């Protein structure tokens, strides 16, 4: 790594990733991965792994603030968690067997449709 740390873009990247992740309850990783890849010259799979190490403590702090304000619905959270852990395992194993690029495009279309429905 030859680039200097603590440049303005580095500081902004960390701060904005945290801000979005706390404000929207997700999305920190979707900012960090391309940010590290393009701005900091980190290999893509290392950027993914590093992003998780950054987001985990941020999610804990945000979750704590959400809990303090009483916006957590625990029974729903637990059900989603059970499904999510199982799904995460399946997804990680499927990664090499399914053309990720096609799936990515299909889900991108879902995201755009959902986005439009959420705004209007």
């Amino acid at each position: 790594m030859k680039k200097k740390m603590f440049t303005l873009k580095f500081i902004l990247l960390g701060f904005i990733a945290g801000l979005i992740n706390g404000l929207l309850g997700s999305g920190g990783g979707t900012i960090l991965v391309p940010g590290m890849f393009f701005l900091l010259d980190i290999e893509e799979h290392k950027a993914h792994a590093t992003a998780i190490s950054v987001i985990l403590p941020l999610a804990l702090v945000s979750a704590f603030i959400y809990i303090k304000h009483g916006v957590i619905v625990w029974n729903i959270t637990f059900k989603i968690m059970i499904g999510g852990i199982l799904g995460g395992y399946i997804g990680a194993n499927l990664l090499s067997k399914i053309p990720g690029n096609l799936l990515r495009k299909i889900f991108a279309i879902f995201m755009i449709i959902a986005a439009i429905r959420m705004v209007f």
Partner: protein
Amino acid sequence: MNLVLIGLLSGIIGGMGIGGGTILIPALILFTSLTQQQAQGVNLLSFVPVAFIALITHLKNKNVKTSISLPLIGLGLLGSILGSFLAVNISSDILRKFFGIFLFFMGLYEFFYKDKRRTK
């Protein structure tokens, strides 16, 4: 049971690295009666165990660049505290619209994402 299924599907997408949260939150908004903040809280908390397991694996494989993740965590914590306080204090409608706009651009990004390693 539907909730476990939503968790499962978003977990699979998350495990494949396509962004589980950006699918989970709109799914919860469109299929349940949760508020935007509640859906975001579900996502924050359900991310924790999944990320924890993934992180152990990534640390073992030495894919986490701690020299980068540690300062990013510090910066990100500032952002996430600010973002979380904003999130729990603004109206669910405005927050949902913010999320929708973010999701729209993330959807575009995912759609045009190229799976090849870019060289500069």
